């Protein structure tokens, strides 16, 4: 059961239809299915339902009902944002619409949500990994672990500047500050945001959003895309869109070539780092997509070996 709100105004206020008792999810449907591939809309949309903020400054990823070239399969579930709230002729407020080339589709039900239902929509928001460390806890755990690593080294052994805790690899970087070497450590958190799923397929065209909740907030980020078999990825002409919601910072413009930020045998890891000068806000999203013109090469992608990482370095503020 769906109802659709066309995007036609910068601000829109409407009510849920009579008889609709719950909203389960929402997604954005492109009005123009003649466009092939992922069309990124720069709108940052905020939606409030019945006084509850469902999303804020969300960068939308329109879902297309048809795929003219037929070599990709989309399901609306792949791009839906889970809502799961009961409504009853509730007010829906939508703001931030700049373009009118999509509809906002609400997935709803004539029944209220029963906790036992176990609805399971695919979320666009990246779930926190189990055991992931944040804030002070992360710094303490990392400091302790690196100290232990240093202490464990016997003569002839050198501590590596990386270690892995609960599946996440952290790096430390020694650097010189004001001409003096300092023991301050920068930690780099490598997260594997896009990888082979259980079906052996990469998740393209799916926008990931997550909250970077390390403290303090003053930090810099160095996103990097790295992958096995990177040459094939470049041939496949993949693009990345990477933005920080809630700010005016477009880290990478739309359709930026992934190869610019990809380390491989020819481009060393450090040189592939892309520094952006603006401190990060908390809401971050990114999406990897194939070029919407290169259908032939896109078909040739063998995705079984690729992992794509995004890497952040955040600076401890003393």
């Amino acid at each position, binding site marked *: 059961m769906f109802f659709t709100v066309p995007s036609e105004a910068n601000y829109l206020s409407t009510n849920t239809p009579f008889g609709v008792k719950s909203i389960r999810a929402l997604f954005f449907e492109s009005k123009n299915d003649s466009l092939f591939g992922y069309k990124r809309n720069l709108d940052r949309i905020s939606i409030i339902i019945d006084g509850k903020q469902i999303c804020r400054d969300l960068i939308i990823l329109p879902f297309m009902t048809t795929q003219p070239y037929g070599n990709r399969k989309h399901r609306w579930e792949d791009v839906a944002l889970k809502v799961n709230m009961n409504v009853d002729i509730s007010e829906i407020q939508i703001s931030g619409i700049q373009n009118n080339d999509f509809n906002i589709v609400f997935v709803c039900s004539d029944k209220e949500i029963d906790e036992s239902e176990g609805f399971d929509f695919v979320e666009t928001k990246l779930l926190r990994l189990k055991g992931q460390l944040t804030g002070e806890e992360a710094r303490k755990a990392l400091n302790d672990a690196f100290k232990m690593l240093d202490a464990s080294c016997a003569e002839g*052994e050198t501590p590596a500047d990386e*270690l892995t*805790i609960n599946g996440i690899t952290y790096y430390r970087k020694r650097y010189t500050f004001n001409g003096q070497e300092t023991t301050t450590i920068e930690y780099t958190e490598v997260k594997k945001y896009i990888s082979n799923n259980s079906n052996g397929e990469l998740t393209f065209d799916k926008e990931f959003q997550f909250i970077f909740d390390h403290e303090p907030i003053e930090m810099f980020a160095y996103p990097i895309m790295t992958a096995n078999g990177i040459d094939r990825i470049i041939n496949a002409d993949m693009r990345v869109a990477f933005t920080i919601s809630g700010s005016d910072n477009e880290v990478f413009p739309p359709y930026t070539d992934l190869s610019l930020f990809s380390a491989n045998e020819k481009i060393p890891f450090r040189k592939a780092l892309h520094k952006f000068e603006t401190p990060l806000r908390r809401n971050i999203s990114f999406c990897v997509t194939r070029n919407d013109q290169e259908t032939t090469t896109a078909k040739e992608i063998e995705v079984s070996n690729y992992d794509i990482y995004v890497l952040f370095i955040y600076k401890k503020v003393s």
Partner: protein
Amino acid sequence: MKKSFQIWREIEVPAGGQTVLSELLKENFSKCTGAFIVPFSATTNLSQVSLFLKIAQNEILPNGTDASIITFDGSVALKDAIYDFSKDNIPARSSELDLTITNNGTSDVKLNFYVVLENE
């Protein structure tokens, strides 16, 4: 020789129960040369805890091994406390690590498990 750790933090083992961990080791280190446990807190009692550790099909610690053998509690230097199997030539590089922790005690325990990785 570069050395690093792969760490599993806050492994919980219920009283009278078992916790099983099965994961791959990091691919950019060639050898796995040691392992140790750190109790999660000073009050964690590991006297009734036993282990089974297998890496790349090599049985490092047989079933029922006393956890105290590889527990680092700060009483000795860490490099002396690490359970050393460097002579066994255990490969890291995406090798599968299987760890079973059994708690025969009457209270839940929580611990951090470390493996030592090395690269030439």
